């Protein structure tokens, strides 16, 4: 039974929202999660790749949400040169529709209430401080008061804007992405494939992430300026026609990936942003599952602490903790991304040829990036910081 007031309202039940709700509820404060869709976890808007460590910080690995275990990356240059990199740490391709359910269940078990089909369309204010949300539910307009709102409402976040936070992202920095889940194809279930270059995905990459030996997520992201000239969908259709003309398409999804560092401000009085809404995606890889869960967990913890201490201004502690944990790292990843973003096909080919000369045991992700950026000494320091220190 819904109450008229909660300590914390979380908007969105993706990985960031569910972890925010769980970490807050575990501290004993009252939490309500409002999800706009009918289902938690569906529709999926994700390539579903994540590192094992990224998951296990929050939930034990479970075969029911793991489609495949990945232990190799294969990078394919425009001229077809293939560089296979064995991973130091294994990864997973998830079944997000099950994974998100399991995460939401951990939030519910901690005491958070969750409501689906609840579309948040406004904020309540006390002076300039947010103190609740307006939402549509069952055809009725409702209001709920809360001491803090955590907006984990995804790439399309509007909640933060209503509180005066600048969440809009330049279209050039948004990767326009599209993906199908294709079946009746043949793939190696332990390898993620990444294609680079003009033909596949300028200012981005094209991916094949296997879900089993006959099924894979196949998709790409291109920079907004590239999408303007030729849409992501056109690149995907061309690839499929050429490489997998007989594939069956089980799902098709589109999406925007905010490949930027975290927003400058992710907190305002009474409100915190988490996950894609805060732009907590790794700007180099475009991965946002693990970083979203980390962002959400810190937001939930700090929000609960703020409520328990009765210190509203304590919410700003979230920015500091996020920056120390990942925000500063993402700035470095963003510099590396900008260093390779506009590489030409010849440059990608050159990197692949140089990487193939590395002895196999030295072909690590860090060494590949070192090879790619050998002419940019400043970025080599960045590569060292994020790939060679733990």
């Amino acid at each position, binding site marked *: 039974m819904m109450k008229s007031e909660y300590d914390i309202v979380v908007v969105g039940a993706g990985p960031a929202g569910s972890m925010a709700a769980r970490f807050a509820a575990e501290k004993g404060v009252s939490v309500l999660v409002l999800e706009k869709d009918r289902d938690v976890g569906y529709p999926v808007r994700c390539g579903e790749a994540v590192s094992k460590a990224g998951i296990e910080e929050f939930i034990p690995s479970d075969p029911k949400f793991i489609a495949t275990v990945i232990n190799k990356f294969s990078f394919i240059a425009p001229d077809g040169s293939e560089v296979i990199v064995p991973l130091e740490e294994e990864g997973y391709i998830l079944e997000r529709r099950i994974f998100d359910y399991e995460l939401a269940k951990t939030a519910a078990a901690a005491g958070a209430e969750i409501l689906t089909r609840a579309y948040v369309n406004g904020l309540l204010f006390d002076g300039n401080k947010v103190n609740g949300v307006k939402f549509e539910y069952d055809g009725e307009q409702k209001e709920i008061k809360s001491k803090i709102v955590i907006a984990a409402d995804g790439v399309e976040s*509007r909640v933060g804007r209503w509180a005066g936070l600048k969440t809009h992202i330049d279209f050039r920095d948004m990767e326009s992405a*599209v993906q199908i889940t294709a079946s009746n194809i043949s793939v190696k279930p332990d390898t993620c494939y990444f294609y680079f270059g003009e033909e596949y995905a300028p200012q981005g990459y094209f991916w094949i992430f296997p879900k089993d030996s006959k099924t894979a997520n196949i998709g790409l992201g291109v920079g907004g300026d590239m*999408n*303007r000239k030729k849409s992501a969908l056109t690149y995907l259709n061309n690839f499929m026609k050429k490489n997998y003309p007989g594939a069956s398409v089980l799902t098709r999804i589109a*999406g925007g990936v905010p490949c930027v560092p975290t927003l400058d401000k992710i907190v305002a009085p009474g409100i915190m942003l988490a996950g894609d809404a805060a732009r907590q995606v790794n700007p180099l890889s475009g991965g946002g599952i693990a970083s979203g869960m980390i962002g959400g967990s810190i937001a939930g913890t700090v929000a609960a602490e703020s409520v328990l201490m009765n210190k509203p201004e304590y919410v700003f502690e979230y920015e500091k903790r996020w920056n120390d944990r990942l925000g500063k790292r993402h700035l470095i990843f963003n510099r590396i991304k900008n260093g390779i973003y506009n590489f030409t096909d010849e440059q990608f080919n050159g990197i692949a040829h140089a990487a193939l000369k590395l002895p196999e045991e030295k072909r690590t992700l860090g060494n590949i990036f070192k090879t790619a950026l050998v002419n940019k000494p400043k970025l080599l320091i960045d590569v060292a910081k994020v790939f060679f220190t733990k």
Partner: protein
Amino acid sequence: MIEILPDKCDFCGCCVGVCPVDAIELKEAEITIIEETCTNCAKCVWSCPIEVLVFNRNGAGKKNDEK
């Protein structure tokens, strides 16, 4: 004026994220351009991965009618 072809839309929210003036509203499977707010800047058109939004220069949009 900017039009959305709703039958093509996957409701991914990319356009909402790049809209500089908060003029697009997305529910689960329902997307609307708030015409009073839209400035016809076309950034949503440029970023849509699956060509759902179209910029119609000759359309009878509100902004054009006012001129």
